[in-house]
């Protein structure tokens, strides 16, 4: 039958995803480049110098989007891993695995840029306050997930074990978010909230938000490409893959 729900499910088939993502990825790259250019232009050439921090604050256009991505990607990864486990949906598990390295990269970037921002601002490359520590733990959670799924040879067991670990670890994500409220900390409080007026100049906020979208586009591009690689790796014996690689020269 051609009911809408059935059509939605057909994209859950690895072959259809491969087709669709192949078409989408270049657009994601285009979006990444355009948004990055716009965000950095506003951030460096429009937004004014900060009264207290001078020009070192401009790291924020990198640091905050990276930190947001690190947390969001973990939740998304846990979600798709969970779906893959609950519904035995292979593609969902593949997407989860594809997200992990990019999530870890953003986490590292948040920590690195945070350290380079902290040194001129607080005088120290690193402090063990709640938010920084939680972000470091998030990196370990990513690495643990990657290590676990790679250590298990049986693909199905690896997917399921990874899903369980990711879901258990996802309780850490709210702790990072609320840690600023719960502990006395050196890290500044939230400057962006849904209800209160933002405490920073609007140009700075704009640049930061544009960069967040840029990182989102980047994440889609990279994660989808990695998923495509994983799909080929796992479905190598499928008919449609044979069809796809027919005529391809042997290396």
């Amino acid at each position, binding site marked *: 039958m051609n009911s809408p729900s059935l059509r939605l499910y057909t994209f859950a088939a690895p072959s259809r995803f491969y087709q669709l993502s192949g078409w989408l990825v270049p657009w994601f790259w285009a979006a990444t480049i355009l948004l990055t250019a716009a965000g950095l232009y506003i951030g460096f050439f*429009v937004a004014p110098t900060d009264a207290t921090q001078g020009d070192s604050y401009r790291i924020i256009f990198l640091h905050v989007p990276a930190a947001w991505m690190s947390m969001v990607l973990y939740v998304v990864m846990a979600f798709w891993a969970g779906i893959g486990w609950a519904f035995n949906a292979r593609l969902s598990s593949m997407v989860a695995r594809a997200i992990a390295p990019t999530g870890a990269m953003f986490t590292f970037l948040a920590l690195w840029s945070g350290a380079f921002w902290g040194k001129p601002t607080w005088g120290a490359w690193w402090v063990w306050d709640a938010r920084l520590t939680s972000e470091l733990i998030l990196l370990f959670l990513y690495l643990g997930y990657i290590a676990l799924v790679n250590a298990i040879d049986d693909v199905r067991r690896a997917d399921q074990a990874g899903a369980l670990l990711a879901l258990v670890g996802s309780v850490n994500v709210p702790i990072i978010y609320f840690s600023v409220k719960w502990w006395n900390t050196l890290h500044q409080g939230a400057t962006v909230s849904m209800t209160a007026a933002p405490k920073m100049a609007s140009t700075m906020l704009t640049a930061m938000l544009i960069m967040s979208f840029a990182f989102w586009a980047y994440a889609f591009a990279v994660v989808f490409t990695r998923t*495509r690689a994983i799909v080929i790796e796992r479905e190598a014996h499928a008919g449609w893959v044979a069809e796809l690689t027919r005529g391809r020269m042997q290396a």
Partner: protein
Amino acid sequence: MNWGSAAAFFEMGGYGLYVWGSYGVAVLLMAVEPVLVRRRHQRALRDAARMNPGSETQS
């Protein structure tokens, strides 16, 4: 415009090391990652081609 000259831009009000140290690493990571992923994809396609006999160019 915020910057009087290119030199001022690179200096970032004295914070050049920190700003460019951050953005430099970001550019590096976000350039290397897609390259590695693309290589993985190409490798997967090659391996799949090898595994699937029937391709006309196979000897």
